[in-house]
């Protein structure tokens, strides 16, 4: 993956909105592996994840002109499309996917030590710090739901906890994230 700066991706999206086929191809090139990884975790099987990736990019082609850089970062906008499509398509009666507990647990894993000023102010860094403030149970439930698209009942099954407990972990964890992100100035609309 070469240049995936938000500015570059926003430029490619603007050109895609103008029906620039070459720009769309570059956009796919720059983001396919990330979007495929996100879908694959949620839907659990490659053929289904390939379908999601196809739908995601057809959707991006059709709706690129609705993308407004003032409202969201390009990758955020694209991730949201891929995740929504994955959650739509994921089988209701599926077996629980192979769950990577390490990934959810490592959400607060080490960050590179020498962060420059830009990185320190980035949304990723703020989120990382805020996840660090959660209790372990809350962080685990949120990580599993986010990466594997687990529903409340799937979370309860996987974690072997009562449904009500799991729902509480998710709700309280999200509340604390909201307070923390708002405090750090990530997202004005998270204030009450």
């Amino acid at each position, binding site marked *: 993956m070469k240049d995936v700066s938000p*500015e570059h991706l*926003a*430029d490619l999206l*603007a*050109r895609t*909105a*103008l029906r620039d086929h070459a720009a*769309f*191809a570059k956009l*796919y090139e720059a983001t*396919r*592996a*990330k979007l*495929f*990884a996100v879908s694959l*975790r*949620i839907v659990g099987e490659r053929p289904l994840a*390939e379908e999601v*990736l*196809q739908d995601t*990019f057809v959707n991006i*082609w*059709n709706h690129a*002109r609705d*993308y*407004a*850089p*003032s*409202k*969201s*970062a390009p*990758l*955020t*906008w694209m*991730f*949201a499309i891929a995740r929504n499509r994955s*959650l739509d398509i994921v089988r209701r009666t599926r077996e629980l996917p192979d769950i990577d507990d390490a*990934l959810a647990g490592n*959400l607060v894993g080490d960050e590179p030590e020498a962060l420059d000023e830009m990185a320190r102010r*980035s*949304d990723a860094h703020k*989120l990382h710090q805020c996840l660090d403030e959660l209790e372990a149970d809350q962080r685990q439930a*949120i*990580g599993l*739901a*986010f*990466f594997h698209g687990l*529903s*409340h009942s799937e979370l309860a099954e996987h974690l072997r906890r009562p449904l009500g407990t799991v729902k509480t972990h*998710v*709700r309280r964890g*999200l509340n604390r*994230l*909201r307070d923390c*992100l708002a405090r750090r100035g*990530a*997202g004005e*609309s*998270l204030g*009450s």
Partner: protein
Amino acid sequence: MKRPTGDLAQALAAEYVLGTLRGRARQRFETWIGEDSALARVVAAWEAGLMPMAERLPGVEPPARVWKAIEARIGRRSDESVWSNAALWRAWAAIASGVAVVLLAFFTWLSQGPRGEPLFVAVLSSTQAVPYGVVSMHSPDILRIRMVRPVGDSPDRELELWVIPKEGAPRSLGVMPNERGDTIIHITSSDPRVRGAVSLAVSLEPPGGSPTKRPTGPMVLSGPIAPVRRG
């Protein structure tokens, strides 16, 4: 159920973005997002908050057949058959003859404008190919944008005109009101902003134009630049 506000809106938006809001509740919530811009902003804020988690995932290369399938699907939109050179050329011929008709009308109309043939013209159309205006470059330094109708119903937005170069980021030529009428921008044809230009585009921006020197609103109009004479 009524549309949620306040803390309930926050809680539902968070679970929607996280993915734990499922089934009918998810669908209903999606409908509300479409109807309620305040709720849409809350969802966007949660997306901005949580999506950076996804950036931590190591990438996985998809097989090449996915891109082929995407190309086939977006190609079919402009033609019944699979995307092919023949289809491409038919589409191009149709567009080119459409442009020729517009240009002819334009030249007749031009006699009321600045004197002499323009250096280049561009017809600004929506993605549905509806023309909204014509841009023409006149020597020595007059770029005229003639809008024939406003874009959408965005009275609080201005239009910002961008040069799309062959490579690199769009370059702003300035803002103009979103209404019928002429705007004149003084710029010479040797200005670096128009170097390598292949098309012009228009985005919707807050009054005064993009605060970031790049388009921040949706690109609503565009048109390829057609050179008319050598400058």
